[in-house]
């Protein structure tokens, strides 16, 4: 019965006429969001250094220790024996994207607590566009981090074929989008900044370790068939493999399909979650940190 009354009610509350935005307006908005993220990243030099130090520690120390244990096996896309540091480099690229994606979700929670998010969300642009802009901003920053890492790795002797550095860009972008979308979805569920530790425990660590980032899946299968199945159910597994194959100029279609599918799924879920009329945001209003 109340349903027919709705339009009147809405019209009563919002008499504003929606202006039709052109592409230019969208681009200005996108630029604003991306620039803000980049500036924030550049100004936080510690964050840049720490994002670089984390994978480098794995590369310099962990890989050196495990070189003899895991150094020899030929699995696609490799055609010959590779050193362990060569094997984990795509995984470490994935790690940068994973941490970065979660960091952008952290920044969403932070923005919400600080009230910045209201500024963003009251913008007349559609909600999905704002979220995608935010994700693009996060992904651009994380791709810059990956390339910085790859430059250092190159001097460490971890070299992919030159074309691989170009081919890996779309793979990094798509994987980054997937992880950012996941982060975005998670951020809609986190009430307070302090809860971010939960993300660390429940998303980053399992996601990272239950994947072929550090050890080939056949080794995991040898150790535990159950763990192998968990790895296969982990979207991060496919992100790592997509990046790994791209490094050698190849496309792993299964990984591409899974990563693309998960990106769409997570993105759609995040958009729904951030939609005030349907999503989780409404339910949180009374418990929100900035209330």
């Amino acid at each position, binding site marked *: 019965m109340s349903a027919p009354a709705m339009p009147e009610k809405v019209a009563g509350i919002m008499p504003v006429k929606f202006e039709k935005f052109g592409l230019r307006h969208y681009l200005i908005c996108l630029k604003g969001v991306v620039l803000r993220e980049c500036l924030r990243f550049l100004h936080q030099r510690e964050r840049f250094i720490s994002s670089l130090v984390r994978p480098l520690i794995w590369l310099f120390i962990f890989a*050196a220790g495990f*070189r*003899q244990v895991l*150094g*020899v096996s*030929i699995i696609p896309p490799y*055609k*010959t*024996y*590779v*050193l362990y540091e060569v094997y984990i480099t795509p995984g470490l690229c994935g790690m940068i994207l994973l941490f970065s994606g979660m960091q952008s979700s952290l920044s969403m929670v932070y923005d919400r607590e600080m009230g910045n998010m209201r500024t963003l969300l009251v913008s007349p642009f559609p909600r999905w566009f704002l979220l995608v802009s935010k994700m693009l901003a996060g992904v651009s920053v994380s791709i810059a981090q990956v390339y910085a890492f790859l430059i250092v790795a190159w001097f460490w002797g971890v070299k992919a074929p030159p074309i691989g550095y170009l081919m890996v860009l779309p793979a990094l972008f798509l994987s980054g989008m997937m992880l950012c979308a996941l982060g975005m979805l998670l951020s809609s569920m986190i009430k307070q900044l302090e809860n971010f530790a939960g993300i660390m425990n429940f998303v980053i660590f399992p996601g990272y370790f239950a994947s072929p980032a550090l050890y080939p899946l056949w080794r995991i299968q040898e150790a535990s068939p159950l763990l192998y199945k968990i790895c296969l159910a982990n979207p991060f597994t496919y992100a790592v493999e997509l990046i790994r194959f791209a490094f050698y100029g190849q496309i792993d279609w299964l990984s591409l399909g899974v990563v693309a599918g998960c990106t769409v799924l997570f993105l759609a879920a995040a958009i729904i979650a951030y939609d005030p009329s349907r999503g989780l945001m409404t339910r949180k209003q009374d418990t929100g940190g900035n209330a």
Partner: protein
Amino acid sequence: MHRRACALAILATGFMAGPASAYMAYVSNEKDNTMSVVDTTTMQVVKTVNVGQRPRGITISHDGKHIYLCASDDDSIEVIDTASLEIVDTLPSGPDPELFVLSPDGKTLYVANEDDNLVTVIDIEGKKVLAEIPVGVEPEGMGVSPDGKTMVNTSETTNMAHFIDTSTHEITDNVLVDARPRFVEFTPDGKQAWVSAEIGGTVSVIDNQTREVIRKITFEISGLRAESIQPVGVRITADGKKAYVALGPANRVAVINTQTYEVEKYVLVGQRVWQLAFTPDQKTIISTNGVSNDITFIDVATDEPVQSVTVGALPWGVVVSPN
């Protein structure tokens, strides 16, 4: 018109040259008594041939028509036709032939008989033994100078390189090297003989004039124990600039600058890398990796491993067809 004809001619020769570069690599598999035939262009095994027991040393005639293979446990050398890939003949070799070398004129084989401390000289055409030269204990490595005048044998237990005059079949010099010398390779100018020592972990560079060790090359790989670095096969590029040394259980092939005697790079290959062979165009060097049952193609220009290909069990030696 004329120019076009020229261009066509160049194109045509280009196409004709194309298939000629498809060399075949022949790999002796010590454990399963087979020889793998590998196309070096597609890097795929095209055929596996059953041969005598415990095939080890392998070489090919200069015209590429016959492969000579040491069937160690059959105490003979098998002659395999490269066209039919069938054993067409056997040569008398003395007991337990392990490694041999073909004289530059292609007429004589010098064979190391591991068990009875002899080097056997075989006339290929006459299929007869020309001479038996007593050398040190456990002869193994065999090398011949490019002019064919000097032949070198190493004895694994005596730890010596024996320089033998090929006209008199007499030992002229004995040079002490490090423990368990495995392989001899002459530089293309014939001025030096490089001898690898498996247990000693070194490569001794011997001056062919003075017959003295002028340099000892050592190897060091971070994260590997010195004992696991065991130099075996040695190959030097035709221009004499680079030497490749297979380092056994170190799973690496060392690339050495022959001017400075410094190791420039260690190339990761399969497990227990044993012998090496260049393709005739010198663009690729192939290593046999015994324990991992594969061979690795290494690009000579970049010294990067390109691809590893599974062959038979315990690949030992490798030779590439000259055409």
